[in-house]
């Protein structure tokens, strides 16, 4: 009887250990996406090259409720992840610009370097400037790059941490596109 109890205890501890080892410590929860919360609003200055088309400042709530929004947080110092995904995002934007809005949030960066990055990749989707990174905190962001997918009702449906590839972007876009 006592022997069995010991075996059970050892098995239970072993099971707990195994379960713990299977968990991915890099998999971080996004409260916004999990609870499908309304996307936190913000107003940020638009980077100069995009002001002609989008105005001096960009208020997210002005654009919610029409098309789904792909919100991408990036920085010029985020190498290589941001450099890998920039062409992917630009390509998808050119393909989907009638059906979805892409918005880049340059985070904790210097304006001159942000502009150089935009030029390097020929980014044509609107870019806003958040040198403090305040909006990132509102979105529960861990680190750049991170991409949030907001549906037509203005709710955050998914969050992708790290560089996004074309297939993943496509998959999430299908989720938010009507």
């Amino acid at each position, binding site marked *: 009887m006592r022997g069995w109890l010991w075996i059970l205890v050892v098995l239970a501890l072993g099971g707990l250990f195994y379960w713990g080892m299977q968990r991915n410590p890099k998999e*971080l*929860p996004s*409260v*916004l996406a999990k609870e499908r919360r309304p996307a936190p609003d913000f107003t940020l200055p638009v980077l100069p090259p995009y002001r002609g088309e989008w105005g001096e400042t960009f208020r997210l709530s002005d654009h919610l409720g029409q098309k789904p929004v792909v919100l991408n947080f990036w920085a010029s110092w985020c190498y290589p992840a941001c450099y890998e995904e920039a062409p992917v995002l630009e390509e998808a934007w050119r393909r989907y610009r009638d059906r979805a809005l892409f918005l880049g949030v340059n*985070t*904790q960066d210097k304006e001159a370097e942000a502009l150089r990055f935009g030029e390097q990749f020929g980014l044509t989707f609107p870019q806003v400037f958040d040198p*403090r*990174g*305040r909006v*990132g*905190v*509102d*979105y*529960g*962001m*861990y*680190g750049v790059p991170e991409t949030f997918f907001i549906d037509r009702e203005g709710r955050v449906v998914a969050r992708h941490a790290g560089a996004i590839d074309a297939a993943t972007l496509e998959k999430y876009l299908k989720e938010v596109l009507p």
Partner: protein
Amino acid sequence: MLLALLALSAWAQEPAAPPPDLSPEVFAIARELRCPVCQGESAAESNSGVAVEMRRIIAEMLEEGKSKEEIKAFFVERYGEWILYAPPRRGVTLWVWVLPVLGLALLGLGLFAYFRPKKPLPPELLEEAECRLKEPPT
């Protein structure tokens, strides 16, 4: 005169925003919050952009008269309870707090059972044992 000069230099060094030296209270709260991009570092220790911004937000909220609990709730609202350095004492994470105490209690119990003074033999057995001791070996 010296004092006035010191005061003047202190005033001259003060930048517009944000203040570089935050109050110790800011760090006390930041110490209880995780730095999102670091490994095992609190928002008080890290110099990463997010942690700096978190400290700035804490300072601003304190200035607005928010309490420590309100500030922590602000971050939990955005990051989930993951952001708290100490797991909350309820739900699943309550076990993290209870198990060590439980383990110690069990260990104590086991040690006590092992080392407790043995019960003396009943008197009739003792007598018999004494008799046998006295008997010359055959």
